[in-house]
């Protein structure tokens, strides 16, 4: 298949040439492990895929992989969007695996198995005794994501948790052109706490079978991770474009080719009198002919051609679920206890989010809350207070202090029927795990035509204005990294009532439609009770009725004035509403303030309709000017408005946040909003 792919590449008919040659030994894993064990595979796993296919009648792995090589829209997993190894039927979620970013979610999935079984989650996808396989190359073992995942698996085991996963390191001793030094993998991974290490010979079928069966048994019974180190070779270079002779000697290349696993396998079959040399050669040639025909046929199959076609799967979901009924009064009374009476009283945002999470956990039995300090402590800001006592450690738990693993858990739990509601403690901490969201969670429906999704709600307390507390890393005010991730819903509520309704919306979106949601909670508004003056209580809100939600993209309007429209969100709304009265007094005209609430899925035509005859539009954005949401909004309004608008963007300076009294010096303030508004209107 690799050979044919390269020949067709030269004819411009094939679009991928990273092959599996040299790694054929992984076919044994495809044989030994039942297809009910979810497998996260790296890109040299063609043999695994074909062998596992044999467990499920009706599959057509050679043809399907050919379609994938040819980027045909009929490729049953990605629809021609990427050469990925994946299949819903075979329990192989597709991914590109180039930077080992699939390891954290593999650990998350393994961690989910016993949890789903013990909680009897009806949506669960994996059998209670399943294990997870996760393969990667020797060079990839050095990626931060790989180390994070392996460390987390070790940590979970160390604290007594179950994480039945087999890390399969397929060690061909090369990372593109850089050799992996002798024994590096062994020395680096053979003595990790809680992780058994087993070495096997990828060139020897019998050794592979014996070791695979052993680790399969041990992992399934013990529910603990195993590092299976398979030594093998890489044939035909890294990819079709890679000229090995540029960095390896001819004798080295020849020595590797001499160790072709197919030759070793042929030798073993002959030595054991299973087949004769002629039979093996005939078999090889018959497969060559067959592959040639199948690959040639696949070249004629249709391709994606339009942007619409490519984008059709960004938020696709083929696994719709129904929304469970609202919890009854009795169960809520029991759940909330003494707090039940207080549900009627106006509360600040932190409290209302807390109530909402309780009701969500009660309603959706497949939801989980986890993150740093969210359990017994109830979160740094007590937003998750009492949830641990209400729902127990299986549904509300502390994660290790590793953001990559938190999102990895989220993806992994999502693979097994859960709707994870995870928390990254502060916005700045997300940056260290951004790729899990960007390249893994968000891309899965795209690469699988919605056969796999990553339902998740990622709560992130963030943004600035914390009364001089914390400095930059607790007040980070950039949401730029979410702006360009296709398909991710980004919510930024500005008050408790909205937060409750929006949180219900996003959990439903995750549960029913498999969506990935980032829910940014402005920390500075968590405890805010007053708006204009102390004790006015105007930022305390009633807990909304259980059936109240705010649809994604729906914004709020404050005032009907036409002299000026302020468009903002989060802390910006709070400050703009404070400024509104003063601006109206000074202009002697009424203005309008719009709270976007959602920083994705904005309905620009509707926004322009609401702006209506108003000519002056001030966008107030608390995030850094470069890359802030307002920047894009400004461009869209200019581009889409049929009449000239007098527009201005008032955003934070392109600076990090300072400590102490200067913490808000670079940010929009009530005063600066008033000033910008007056300048804009008065010219």
């Amino acid at each position, binding site marked *: 298949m690799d050979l044919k792919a390269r020949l067709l590449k030269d004819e411009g008919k094939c679009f991928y040439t990273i092959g599996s040659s040299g790694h054929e030994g992984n076919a044994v894993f495809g044989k030994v492990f039942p297809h009910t064990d979810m497998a996260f595979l790296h890109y040299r796993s063609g043999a695994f895929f074909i062998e596992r296919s*044999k467990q499920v*009648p*009706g*599959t*057509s*792995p*050679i*043809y*399907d992989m050919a379609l994938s090589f040819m980027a045909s829209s*009929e490729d049953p997993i990605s629809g021609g969007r990427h050469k990925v190894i994946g299949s819903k039927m075979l329990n192989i979620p597709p991914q590109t695996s180039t930077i080992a970013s699939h390891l954290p979610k593999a650990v998350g999935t393994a961690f989910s198995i016993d949890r789903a079984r013990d909680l009897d989650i009806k949506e669960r996808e994996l059998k209670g005794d399943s294990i997870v396989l996760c393969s990667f190359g020797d060079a990839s073992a050095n990626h931060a994501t790989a180390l994070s995942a392996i460390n987390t698996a070790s940590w979970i085991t160390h604290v007594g948790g179950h994480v039945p996963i087999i890390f399969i390191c397929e060690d061909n001793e090369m990372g593109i052109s850089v050799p992996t030094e002798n024994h590096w993998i062994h020395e680096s991974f053979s003595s990790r706490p809680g992780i058994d290490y087993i070495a096997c010979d990828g060139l020897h079928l019998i050794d592979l079978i014996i070791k695979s069966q052993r680790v399969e048994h041990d992992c399934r019974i013990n529910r603990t991770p195993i590092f299976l180190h398979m030594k093998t070779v890489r044939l035909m270079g890294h990819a079709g474009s890679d000229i090995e002779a540029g960095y390896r000697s001819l004798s080295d290349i020849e020595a590797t080719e001499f160790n072709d696993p197919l030759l070793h396998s042929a030798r073993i079959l002959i030595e054991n009198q*299973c*087949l004769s040399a002629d*039979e093996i050669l005939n*078999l090889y040639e018959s497969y060559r*002919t*067959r592959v040639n*025909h*199948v690959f*040639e*046929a696949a070249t004629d199959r249709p391709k994606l051609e339009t942007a619409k076609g490519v984008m059709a799967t960004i938020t696709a979901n083929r696994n719709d679920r129904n929304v469970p009924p609202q919890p009854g009064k009795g169960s809520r009374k029991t759940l909330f206890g003494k707090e039940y009476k207080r549900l009627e009283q106006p509360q600040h945002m932190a409290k209302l989010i807390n109530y909402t999470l309780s009701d969500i956990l009660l309603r959706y039995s497949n939801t989980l809350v986890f993150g740093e300090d969210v359990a017994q402590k109830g979160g740094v800001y007590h937003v998750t207070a009492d949830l641990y006592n209400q729902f127990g450690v299986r549904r509300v738990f502390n994660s290790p202090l590793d953001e990559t693993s938190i999102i990895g858990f989220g993806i992994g739990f999502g693979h097994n029927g859960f709707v994870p509601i995870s928390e990254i403690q502060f916005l700045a901490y997300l940056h260290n795990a951004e790729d899990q969201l960007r390249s893994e969670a968000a891309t899965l429906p795209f690469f699988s035509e919605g056969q796999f999704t990553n339902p998740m709600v990622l709560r992130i307390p963030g943004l600035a204005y914390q009364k001089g507390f914390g400095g930059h890393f607790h007040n980070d005010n950039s949401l730029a990294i979410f702006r360009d991730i296709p398909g991710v819903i980004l919510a930024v509520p500005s008050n408790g009532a909205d937060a409750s309704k929006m949180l219900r919306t996003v959990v439903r979106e995750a549960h029913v439609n498999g969506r990935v949601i980032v829910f940014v909670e402005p920390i500075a508004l968590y405890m805010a009770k007053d708006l204009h003056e102390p004790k006015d209580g105007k930022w305390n809100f009633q807990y909304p009725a259980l059936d109240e939600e705010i649809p994604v993209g729906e914004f709020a309007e404050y005032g009907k004035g036409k002299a000026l429209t302020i468009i903002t969100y989060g802390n910006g709304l709070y400050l703009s509403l404070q400024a509104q009265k003063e601006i109206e007094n000074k202009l002697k005209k009424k203005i309008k303030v719009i709270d976007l609430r959602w920083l994705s899925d904005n309905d620009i035509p509707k926004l322009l309709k609401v702006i209506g005859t108003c000519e002056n539009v001030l966008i107030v954005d608390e995030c850094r000017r470069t890359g802030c949401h307002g920047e894009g909004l400004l461009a869209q309004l200019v581009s889409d408005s049929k009449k000239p608008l007098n527009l201005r963007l008032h955003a934070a300076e392109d600076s990090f946040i300072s400590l102490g009294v200067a913490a808000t010096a670079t940010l929009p303030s009530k005063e600066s909003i008033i000033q910008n508004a007056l300048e804009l209107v008065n010219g």
Partner: protein
Amino acid sequence: MGKERIVVICPGRGTYSRETSGYLKIHGTTAQSQITWMDEHRKNEGLLTLSELDSQPFKTKVHMRGENASPLIYACSLSDFLSIDRSKYEIVAITGNSMGWYIALALGGALSNENAFSLINTMGSMMSEGIIGGQIIHPIVGENWQVDEVKTKAVLNEVEKAGAYVSIRLGGYVVIGGEQKSLNTLLKKLTTDDKYPFQIPFHAAFHTPLLESVSKKAFGLLSELLFQKPAIPLVDGRGHIWSPFSTETQELYQYTLGIQVTRTYDFTTSVTVAMKEFCPDKLVLLGPGNTLGGSIGQIMIQNNWLNVDSKKAFTNRQNKEPYLISMGMEDQREIVSK
């Protein structure tokens, strides 16, 4: 020029009919020695020989009984198979529909002629005392032979409600198996403008759990030792490929007398897998008759195979350069015969 690669498709019960009467007499010479052996065997059992049956006027009650129909069809298919010009055509895989699986096993080398005859006779005679349940056939495609998803869902829903089972997925048709009471309900419920649905005479509720007792009995009567590794890849009624060398005969035995007898026979997937995984130059449907031809065309349409996406496209393709060769049709038979 190399040989053309073909996938051979073996027909199921019901293909030896009034129209194909006398098939062996015309086409049976290539398998004469095997037919003679089978005739001798039947004679010793006190049964009409296949040659006699073939030369007699067709009588539904005689020719469609399992113990007669099954070996007759096997003999016809075997003759056709042996007529294929192997100097021009390489058989890359064999599949079949329903009883066609037993024939596929024989032609692919997983059963000797004698053992195939024994298996086919045994399975065909299982219900000589009275058949269990029955089968009806109903279309799930429109005029263009494209699958009507709404209709399919509705039909399957009715099947479930009536307590019946999907016996065979047959391209644009679904064959439903069940107790007569369930089938009677469905015959009323599923009525359409044309002749469908109708009950297939002398057919039991093949490929449904109602045949568990038959499966059990078959395991008692037939030994695993009848089976051997196939010489040519076989695609079974689930779309699973049994390859030479890697086939475990114990598993093949278990499948053939177990799941194959009591669970849905998915001919649609069998042909789909054969086309995709072997990409043959042609499909060759063995005789007698060519009643599976339409179903195979419909399977091509379901897969948009060779850009065939409608009945018209299929007909055009067949007229221009036939992809499906039915050996039961004289003009097409010539293409692949010696």
